């Protein structure tokens, strides 16, 4: 009698503890997910701002002024990063450079 009662009590206790552990784990994962979402948002924003800055610096309107009088040299094609890394055309004005693929950024 006592044994059965004790076993049932222990079982209920064990299930409750397991539930609490799972709940805590769930909360922890959700917290981590939220933090990662936040970090992603911050990084995306940073990326957007850096991209904006890059585009401003490489704007044809700005760069052509310096290119014409020779204040700014065009980078030779050999110095360019691989095509996979370079998707947004900046300084090189050639339509198709060796090793580059025109495509969407």
């Amino acid at each position, binding site marked *: 009698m006592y044994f059965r009662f004790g076993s049932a009590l222990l079982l209920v206790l064990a299930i409750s503890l397991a539930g609490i552990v799972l709940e805590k784990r769930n909360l922890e994962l959700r917290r981590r997910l939220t933090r990662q979402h936040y970090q992603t948002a911050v990084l995306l924003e940073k990326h*957007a701002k850096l991209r*904006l800055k890059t*585009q401003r610096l490489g704007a044809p*309107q700005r760069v052509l002024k310096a290119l014409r009088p020779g204040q700014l040299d065009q980078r030779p094609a050999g110095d360019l990063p691989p095509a996979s890394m370079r998707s947004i055309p900046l300084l090189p004005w050639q339509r198709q450079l060796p090793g580059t693929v025109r495509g969407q950024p």
Partner: protein
Amino acid sequence: MVSHDGPSESVVVSAASSAGEIEWLLMECTPLNKRLVWRMRSLIAGLIVMWLILAGRLVDLQWLRQANYARSARQQRLYVENIRARPGEIMDRDGRLLAMTVSARSLFINPSRLKTPWQTAQKLATALGENADQLFARFHAHADKQFLWVKRRLTDAQARRVRGLELPGDVWGFRDEYLRQYPQGTLAAHVLGLRDIDGNGRGGVEQSLDRFIRGVDGKRVMDRDARGHVLQVRDEVDAMPADGRSVRLTLDSVIQVFVERELDDVMQTWKPRSCAAIVLDPRSGEVLAMASRPGFDPNRPHVECDHAWNNTAVSAVYEPGSTLKPCIVAWALQQDRIQVSESLHCENGKYRMGRRLLHDHHSYGRLSIEDILVKSSNIGMAKIGERLGNEGLYRSVTRFGFGQRTGIRLHEELRGMVRPLKQWDVYSTGSVPMGQEIAVTPLQLIVAHAALANGGTLIRPRLVMNSQNSPGQTVDRVSTFCVKPAVANWVVRQAMHGVVQRGTGRKAQIAGVTMFGKTGTAQKIDPATGRYSSNRHVCSFVCGAPADAPRVMVLLVVDEPSVGAPHFGGTVAAPGASRILENALARAPRSSSSLQTAKK
């Protein structure tokens, strides 16, 4: 004798005595007792009424107005935060960013909690570069409010300075908002348009493609306590925002730079009211550049004159003048009303049509059809007009798309003006062939000439290449048969090529390039007299190259040049247009876009 029914008797006696007491009470009803009874009855009645009222109120609350109160309670408890979707980017054909969105801080305060409004206004004014008096006046005017924007979309430096003020935490706060930025500055400002402070597209692509670019806002539902503090976020009813689609335009930023510089030069040299230029690929209808002056900076949208907002390339109409002549000649050839081998007598510079005396700039005798275009003879064109008749002329201008929108994705595009045929008279027979009595937009004109350049097919001009996030999307090229290829090729390769080689467009020649073109000098109506003015002109030049297989077409329109002389299309517009063409030829795609063509 002992009685057995003693207790019963006593009960009877007791009951009798109780009844007797009540009877006595009733019998002994003094005024005091009556008042007591009355009070008790009133109390009971009052209690009943009160319970009835409470029951009625309960019914009212729980049944009749249950929905309203439940809604109010929900509104007080729940807070729905709108999560703005990030608008998509706009890029040129090479992927250079023309418009993008970044996040920026907006500053608000709670005026009702301001203890020292003047000092706060002074501090914020210093940090934000605003006027302290105006800021204080705003605080004062909204003193009972709990929310007031101080300044929206601060720069990073301004946000840092505001944080450095260390104002009380319950008085102020930042909210993140999206800020539209145009990294290329003023480049293609008219084509792009801008987004207002509430994120709505205004003008250009920003407005016409707003529903693609703006995205769909999301929402976040939160429970809050009586003080407004958030208790929990209800994940189950959240809706994530769907960011806007990125749009890739057909514009080429480098060609656009050349065009805008040329327009700036034209504005400086000729001081016109406005000017516009378009660069178009006649094979695909892709607009490679489009610009107008005066312009504006979408990052700092303030203009000196109101018409600086206008994209005159699509939203201004003018009489095309001689630039219309190739279209009329092509249609007359198409209809066999004239032959290329034919020549017409140009009456030595004076020709009477009804009550009207037509003039040429120079007196010409007999001119071939080619020379009529090369010399831009009005009398020769009037004679072609006589052969076509008003109906033929009407069909020619409508066939080349005048009087109807080209279909480019710019909401501000005008349809130009072609009057109904029944309003045309004998005057029209002489006027229309020389580009009067109809009004066109620069875009309509270059599209009509592109039809000649591509072998006789009128193509809908395109500004949007495709939309990102929809890779499977194909863009149909809508085109309409206009004139036979043989006719179009003759007009372009012979007549319009001759205009540049030995005609009115000689100043546009480019060494080593076989180009074609047509000048236009249209007189404007003087509003004071209602007649054509002798000193107000619209000078234009439309050209393209290479003549044997045109890849690029350029139109430059200069409205009312005010300094220098003479004001002809060949002197004002032709040199600038040819410089644009020269630069554009080096950049323009060698092969046409592989698009699906759908004949209408």
